[in-house]
C-alpha cells in the first residue's frame, strides 16, 4: 500500500475574510479536521488568490483530484484516487448550500461569492448516497446573515476574456438576511478552428443568485434561488496521426456549441433544540440544455450530433442529528428521496461522407465478395437518425450513523439502505432511399424503427465504520466504507444500434443474409444499452496533525477495491457511439501528502497525491487488460503554493501579496492498453494582489511557461483525437468590497 498524506489548503491568515463560520451543517457535528475523513477545505480568499473559478480548478490543489478542462461546461469528468467516469454521472457528488445537485451537466459553473468549498475524498455514500464513491464537493455560498456589504469585480485577460460580478448582502433588524448577485463572463476562446478560421471555444456565461435567510431562537430558514445561462463553443479536439506522431490543429466543419439554461432552488429549514438539530433540505433543479457537435471532428461532412435535455429534479432530505460534541453518543439519521424526469432528444445527422464511409463502405465490402461489380447506393445527401428518450428515475434512502466517544477513541459506524429505480423509454427511427444497382432500377424507401423500454432497480446497503484516536497534536484514524455509483443507460450508442439495424433491415428487404457475425455487434440487444452499478470498498488510514497555528499536516493511506468499474468504451471499428462498460475488478492503492507552514509573512502549502489504479481483471472481449493502469486518472497530482505578503503603510497600499503556484499532473494513461501516455507536466501560475482600502487590484497569470499538455484523448471511427490544455493566460482584475 502506498502512503497518502492530505492537508487542507490554507491562505495566509491575514488574507482571510472576517466571515463567521456560523453555518451549522445538517450532517456534520464537527469541523472536518476532527473527523475521520480525508478532506480539503478552501475558503473564499484562497479561492480568489488562486483564481479557483470552477470545480475544474480543484485539480491538483485537492490531492488525487483531477477534473480536466475540455469539451464544454457540460463535461464534468472527475477522477479521484484513480477512479472516475468520463460520461454520465461522475464519481463525486456535489451539493451547494447543502442541496444535492443530481445532474453532472450542472457541475461546471463559474464561481462567485463562494464562502467555502469542502472536498471530501473517499466514499461518502452512507450519508450522501448515490454517486459519491469518490467523494463529495460541498460548496457554501456567502450568507447574508454573516456577511454584509457590496461586492463588485471586473476582470480582463488573454483570449479577450472579460468577466464581471456584483452582489449585495443586507440584513434587517428582525434577523432577515437577503442578497442578490449577478455574474457575467465572455471570452473569444483560445483554440482556432482551421476550418472556420475562428476560435471554437468562444462563449459567454451568466447567472443570477438570490438568497433569503432568517434565523431566530434556534429556528432558521434559508432559500436560495439561482438562474444560469451558458452559450459557448468548445470541443477543441485535434486529430492525432499516431503513425507520424503528429498532432494537427482543430479542424472540423460543423458547429460545436453548448447552450444551457438552469434554474435551481433550495430551501433549508433547521430547528436547533440545543441537543438535537432537525433539518429539512428541499431541492429543485431544472436543466434545459442543447449540445451540437461535429461528432467526427474532421473537416469532412461525416455526421453531426445534437442532444437536447430537459430535466426536472426534486429532492428531499430530512435529517436529525445530535448537536452536542461533548456527549458520548453522537448520531445522525436521515430519510432521503429524489425523483427526476429526463426527456432527451438526440438526433444524429448522417452526412455524405458518413454515408459513404460508415455505412456503404462496410456494406459494399461484404457485397463485393460475392458481386464485385455491384453496389448499394443511398440517394439521400444526408439523413437523420432520430432518438428520443424518456428516463424517469426515483430513489429513496434511510440512513443512520453513530459515533461513540470513549476518551481518546471515537468509534463511528453507519449504514444506508438505498433504493433506486430508473426506466428508459426509447424510440429511434430513420428513413432513407436506397438502391442495389445490380437488380434495382429505382430507389426504394426504407424505414427503420427501434423502440422499447428498459428498467433498472437497485437496493443497496452502504455501510461505513471508522476508529479515531486523539493525539495531543491532532488525531489519527482508520476507516472502511462502501461506495456506490448507480447503473444507467447507454443512450449514446443508439445511433450505432440504429445504423446496424438499418443495414440489417436493408439486407432483409433485399433478401440477403450474411453468414458470419460481421454485421452484428455486442450491443444489438437493447439490454446491452444498460450498465451495472459500480461498487468500491475504501480502506483508509489517516490523520490530521497540527503544531501551533503555523504548521499543519493531514495524511491518509488508502486502498480501494472496485467491482464493476464503469468505463467508457468506444466499440472497435468504425462505430459512432460509445458505451459505458463494467470493467470487472480493479483496485487503487495510493498516497496523498500535504502540509501548510507559515512563518511571519511567508507561507507555503503543498499537496501531493499518488494513486496506482489498475485493472485486476478486465477483458473487453477482444483484449485482456488485466494488470494495466486504469486510463484517464493521473498517477500523481502535485501542487505547491508560495505566498509572501508585504504590509504597506496605507498611503500607497495596505498590503501586497505575491503568490506563486506550481501544479503538476501525470502520468496519465489514455487507453486501456496503456499504449498512449501523457507524461507528467507542470503548470506555473502567479498572482500579485495589491490591497488598498476596499479596492483590490490583481495581476495574474496561468500556465506561465506555456506548457503544452493534453487534457483528453479519445478514439473514434478509427481516428485518435486529443484536446490540449490552454496556453499561457494573463489578466488583470479589480474588485471592491464595501
Amino acid at each position, binding site marked *: 500500500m502506498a502512503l497518502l498524506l492530505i492537508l487542507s489548503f490554507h491562505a495566509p491568515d491575514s488574507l482571510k475574510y472576517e466571515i463567521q463560520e456560523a453555518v451549522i451543517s445538517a450532517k456534520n457535528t464537527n469541523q472536518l479536521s476532527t473527523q475521520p475523513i480525508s478532506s480539503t477545505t478552501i475558503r473564499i480568499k484562497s479561492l480568489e488568490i488562486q483564481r479557483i473559478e470552477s470545480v475544474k480548478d480543484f485539480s491538483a490543489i485537492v490531492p488525487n483530484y483531477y477534473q480536466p478542462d475540455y469539451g464544454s461546461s457540460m463535461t464534468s469528468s472527475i477522477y479521484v484516487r484513480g477512479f472516475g467516469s468520463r460520461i454520465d454521472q461522475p464519481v463525486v457528488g456535489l451539493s451547494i448550500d447543502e442541496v444535492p445537485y443530481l445532474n453532472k451537466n450542472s457541475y461546471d459553473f463559474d464561481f462567485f461569492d463562494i464562502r467555502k468549498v469542502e472536498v471530501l475524498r473517499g466514499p461518502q455514500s452512507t450519508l450522501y448516497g448515490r454517486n459519491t464513491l469518490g467523494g463529495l464537493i460541498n460548496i457554501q455560498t456567502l450568507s447574508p446573515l454573516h456577511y454584509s456589504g457590496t461586492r463588485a469585480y471586473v476582470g480582463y485577460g488573454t483570449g479577450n476574456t472579460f468577466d464581471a460580478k456584483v452582489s449585495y448582502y443586507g440584513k434587517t433588524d428582525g434577523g432577515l438576511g437577503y442578497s442578490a448577485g449577478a455574474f457575467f463572463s465572455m471570452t473569444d476562446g483560445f483554440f482556432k478552428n482551421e476550418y472556420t478560421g475562428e476560435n471554437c471555444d468562444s462563449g459567454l456565461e451568466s447567472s443570477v443568485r438570490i438568497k433569503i435567510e432568517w434565523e431566530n431562537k434556534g429556528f432558521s430558514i434559508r432559500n436560495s434561488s439561482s438562474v444560469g445561462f451558458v452559450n459557448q463553443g468548445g470541443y477543441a479536439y485535434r486529430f492525432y496521426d499516431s503513425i507520424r506522431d503528429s498532432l494537427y490543429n482543430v479542424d472540423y466543419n460543423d458547429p460545436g456549441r453548448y447552450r444551457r439554461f438552469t434554474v435551481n432552488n433550495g430551501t433549508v429549514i433547521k430547528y436547533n433544540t440545543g441537543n438535537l438539530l432537525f433539518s429539512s433540505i428541499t431541492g429543485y433543479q431544472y436543466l434545459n440544455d442543447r449540445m451540437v457537435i461535429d461528432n467526427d471532428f474532421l473537416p469532412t461532412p461525416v455526421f453531426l450530433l445534437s442532444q437536447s435535455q430537459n430535466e426536472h429534479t426534486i429532492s428531499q432530505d430530512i435529517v436529525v442529528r445530535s448537536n452536542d460534541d461533548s456527549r458520548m453518543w453522537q448520531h445522525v439519521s436521515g430519510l432521503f428521496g429524489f425523483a427526476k424526469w429526463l426527456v432527451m432528444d438526440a438526433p444524429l445527422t448522417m452526412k455524405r461522407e458518413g454515408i459513404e464511409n460508415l455505412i456503404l463502405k462496410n456494406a459494399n465490402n461484404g457485397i463485393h465478395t460475392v458481386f464485385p461489380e455491384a453496389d448499394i447506393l443511398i440517394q439521400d445527401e444526408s439523413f437523420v437518425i432520430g432518438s428520443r428518450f424518456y428516463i424517469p428515475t426515483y430513489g429513496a434512502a434511510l440512513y443512520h450513523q453513530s459515533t461513540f466517544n470513549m476518551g481518546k477513541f471515537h468509534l463511528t459506524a453507519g449504514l444506508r439502505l438505498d433504493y433506486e429505480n430508473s426506466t428508459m423509454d426509447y424510440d429511434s427511427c430513420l428513413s432513407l432511399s436506397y438502391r442495389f444497382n445490380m437488380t434495382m432500377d429505382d430507389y426504394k424507401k426504407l424505414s427503420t424503427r427501434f423502440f422499447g423500454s428498459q428498467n433498472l432497480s437497485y437496493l443497496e446497503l452502504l455501510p461505513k465504520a471508522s476508529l479515531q484516536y486523539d493525539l495531543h497534536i491532532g488525531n489519527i484514524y482508520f476507516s472502511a466504507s462502501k461506495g456506490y455509483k448507480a447503473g444507467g443507460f447507454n443512450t449514446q450508442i443508439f445511433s450505432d444500434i440504429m445504423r446496424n439495424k438499418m443495414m440489417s433491415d436493408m439486407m432483409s428487404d*433485399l*433478401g*440477403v*443474409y450474411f453468414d458470419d457475425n460481421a454485421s452484428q455487434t455486442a450491443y444489438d440487444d437493447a439490454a446491452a444499452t444498460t450498465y451495472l452499478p459500480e461498487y468500491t470498498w475504501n480502506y483508509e488510514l489517516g490523520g490530521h496533525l497540527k503544531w501551533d497555528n503555523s504548521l499543519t499536516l493531514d495524511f491518509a493511506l488508502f486502498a480501494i477495491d472496485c467491482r464493476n468499474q464503469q468505463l467508457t468504451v468506444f466499440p472497435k471499428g468504425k462505430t459512432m457511439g460509445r458505451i459505458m462498460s463494467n470493467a470487472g475488478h480493479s483496485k487503487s492503492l495510493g498516497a496523498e501528502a500535504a502540509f501548510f507552514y507559515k512563518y511571519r509573512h511567508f507561507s507555503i502549502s503543498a499537496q501531493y497525491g499518488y494513486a496506482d489504479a489498475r485493472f485486476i481483471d478486465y477483458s473487453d472481449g477482444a483484449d485482456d487488460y488485466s494488470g494495466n493502469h486504469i486510463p484517464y486518472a493521473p498517477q500523481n497530482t502535485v501542487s505547491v503554493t508560495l505566498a509572501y505578503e508585504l504590509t504597506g503603510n496605507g498611503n500607497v497600499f495596505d498590503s501586497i501579496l505575491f503568490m506563486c503556484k506550481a501544479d503538476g499532473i501525470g502520468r496519465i494513461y489514455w487507453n486501456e492498453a496503456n499504449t498512449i501516455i501523457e507524461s507528467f507536466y507542470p503548470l506555473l501560475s502567479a498572482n500579485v494582489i495589491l490591497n488598498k482600502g476596499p479596492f483590490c487590484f490583481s495581476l495574474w497569470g496561468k500556465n506561465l511557461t506555456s506548457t503544452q499538455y493534453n487534457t483528453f484523448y479519445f478514439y473514434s471511427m478509427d481516428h485518435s483525437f486529443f484536446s490540449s490544455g490552454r496556453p499561457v493566460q494573463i489578466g488583470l482584475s479589480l474588485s471592491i468590497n464595501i
Partner: protein
Amino acid sequence: MKQTFLLILTFAVLLFGCTKSEINEEFIPQNGNYTGTLVVDQNDGTEYTDDSVSVEVIINTDNTVDITMKAVKFSSKMPVTLDMTIKNVPYSVNGKEMVISGTDLIPWAMGGEFPRYIITDLTGSISDQTIILKMSCGGYPIDYNGITLSDK
C-alpha cells in the same frame, strides 16, 4: 311412380357417391411452405448440399406459381444467403399434384431481376405434402426435395 322414385334415388346415390369420390381425388392448388434438401452440382465433380432449405410456394390467379427459396446459397463459397424467387412458373394439376415446368425464367433476388441466376429446364411437382424441383440455375444443376414444413 314408385319405380321412378327408386330410379331417381338410385341415380342420386350413384351421382353423389361418384362426385364425392372425384372431388376427393382432385388436387386444389394452395400456398405452402416446405423444407428440404438442396443439392447443387458444382460442375467440378462435387456437389453442394444443404438439407435445411425452406421454400415458399404462392399460387397466382393465372395458373402460375411463385417459388421462393429462402436464405439459400448454391455454393459453400458464397458468404451470403439469398432469398430467390422464381416468378410466374406455369403449372397444371395432374391428379394429386401440380406439375410445373418452365425455362429461361429470370429469378428475382436482391430487390430485382437477377439474370445471373437464370433458371432453365425447370421441372417439378408440388403436392400438399411434398415438393420436387429440378432446374439449372445460372448453369448449375439443382435438385430440391422437400416436405411440408408442418410435417417435418
